């Protein structure tokens, strides 16, 4: 029962990420919505599923998927954000501190 509630909560967080990706105005904010909400949502789903399963093999598989997503989703989001920032022709807007401004002028890819 606990696992089902956790899985439902994680699914709702994934849905929030989807709404954010659909409605936010530019690439960087969409990436922000996706990577924060869906990392936690996925981990909640996986932990909830691990609560409900019985064999050790299944539990470790579910938790391994969760751990891989925790490790890889933020890295992938960082790569996408950096390349979208540096690429020509993708509109973006940075409000306060622009820490990649140097990389933009110096790089030759």
């Amino acid at each position, binding site marked *: 029962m606990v696992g089902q509630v956790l899985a439902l909560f994680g699914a709702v967080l994934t849905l929030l990420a*989807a709404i954010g990706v*659909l409605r936010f105005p530019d*690439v960087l904010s*969409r990436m922000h919505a996706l990577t924060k909400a869906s990392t936690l949502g996925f981990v909640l789903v996986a932990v909830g599923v691990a609560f409900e399963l019985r064999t050790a093999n299944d539990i470790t598989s579910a938790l391994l998927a969760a751990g*891989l997503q925790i490790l890889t989703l933020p*890295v992938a989001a960082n790569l996408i954000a950096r*390349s979208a920032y540096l690429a020509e022709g*993708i509109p973006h807007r940075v409000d306060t501190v622009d820490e990649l401004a140097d990389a933009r002028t110096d790089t030759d890819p």
Partner: protein
Amino acid sequence: MIEATYAVLVLAFVLFGVRMAKGPTLADRVIALDGMLVAGIGVLLVNAMDTGRGAFLQVAVLLALVGFISTSVIARFIEGRGE
């Protein structure tokens, strides 16, 4: 409750699909594809919880890895190409 979880995940999948169809840039599509992968792996996990059999959990682990690799490769591609 499991049916509601399925429904929410499928709705999220469809919304990501709408963003992927609308674009407008390649980076948006990659982000939407990442989200679709997350929702799809979630459906696999919930299916394992539903049936009580873990045969698809290895697929979930593998998809998590493949999704990361494809995203980083496309990120390199975007940086070189633009738009």
